[in-house]
């Protein structure tokens, strides 16, 4: 018996098969875009004790069914909301907050820890308007936190890093640096400028 070498397999159609698969995955791919605004809902509490909060420490935002914005009983454009919220949070009325740069107006909030933003919306409010308002309020908090992070970051060994970058780095597995120190810094800023956003039930 003469030995014959096995004939070579024709690989010419390999490209076709690969193309077929490629096109299938191209079509089924949805590029991931899952990101959003994280919120924590308040737990349903049984105890009915009323906490007394001074009127001046509450920043009321009202969104009506026509998506119009009423801030502290005045009509406002959505683009001015962030600046107004920053001004309110940063006011430092009782002078106890040494990192605030606000106007120290006695009629506005005492300090960032006491300042509460109250958001009320109507059942007919559109979701996009609601998200825009949420986004602007989060932006106001982030602006203050970024400023604070740039102030105290250099002393802790994290220069030129704002709060949002810090949080990103903390979550980033590839980031090299002292994560424990970063975590304490992030927590400190979160305590100094807490996000107190309350939503009114309707």
């Amino acid at each position, binding site marked *: 018996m003469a030995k014959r070498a096995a004939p070579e397999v024709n*690989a010419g159609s390999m490209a076709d098969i*690969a193309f077929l698969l490629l096109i299938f995955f191209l079509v089924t791919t949805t590029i991931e875009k899952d990101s959003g605004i994280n919120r924590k*809902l308040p737990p349903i509490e049984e105890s009915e004790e009323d906490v007394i909060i001074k009127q001046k420490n509450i920043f009321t935002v009202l969104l009506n069914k026509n998506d119009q914005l009423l801030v502290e009983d005045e009509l406002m454009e959505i683009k001015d909301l962030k600046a107004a919220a920053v001004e309110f949070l940063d006011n430092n009325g009782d002078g106890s907050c040494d990192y605030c740069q606000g106007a120290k107006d006695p009629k506005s909030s005492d300090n960032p820890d006491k300042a509460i933003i109250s958001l009320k*919306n109507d059942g*007919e409010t559109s979701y996009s308007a609601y*998200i825009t308002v949420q986004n602007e309020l989060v932006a106001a908090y982030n602006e203050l936190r970024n400023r604070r992070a740039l102030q105290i970051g250099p002393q802790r060994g994290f220069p030129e890093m704002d709060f949002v970058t810090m949080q990103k780095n903390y979550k980033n597995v590839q980031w090299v640096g002292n994560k424990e120190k970063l975590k304490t810094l992030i927590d400190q800023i979160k305590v100094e400028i807490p996000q107190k956003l309350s939503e009114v039930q309707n």
Partner: protein
Amino acid sequence: MSKFKKKKDGGLPPVNTASLPDIVFMLLFFFMVATVMREDTLMIQNSLPLANQVEKLDKKNPIAYIYMGKPAAGYEKYGKTARIQLNDKFARVEDVAAFIAAERAAMREELIPFLTVSLKVDRDAKMGIVGDVKQELRKVNALKINYTTGAGDALTNMQ
């Protein structure tokens, strides 16, 4: 004479396509890795609003998706107002609690406190239905929520 002719008829040599499968495979692997299969078939309109203060939804923790929006084309018989979609079905507000319970039953026990509920709500939906769902989530103690949005300038939402 024939000497010269022979040289000419060669013309351009054909391009070697032997590496074409390799290139295609490379692309194929990229898309295979980047692909996320759609988990649910959407029966509602779902164009998310934009926001710029977004955080990435942590995939390490379990996520339950709740969709809300107007019934899409082909599902007009379900009405014109925003509806809730859980998994592959239209649902009522009362079904949210059962849905969360089912999601919790399907996951490992130690992960249950980390369950995040992603609300994928159409930009034209009204807050009434979103508020109802939020209230229902509070009742079953699923408090971590995420308003899932696209990335972009939020101020363009309201035009």
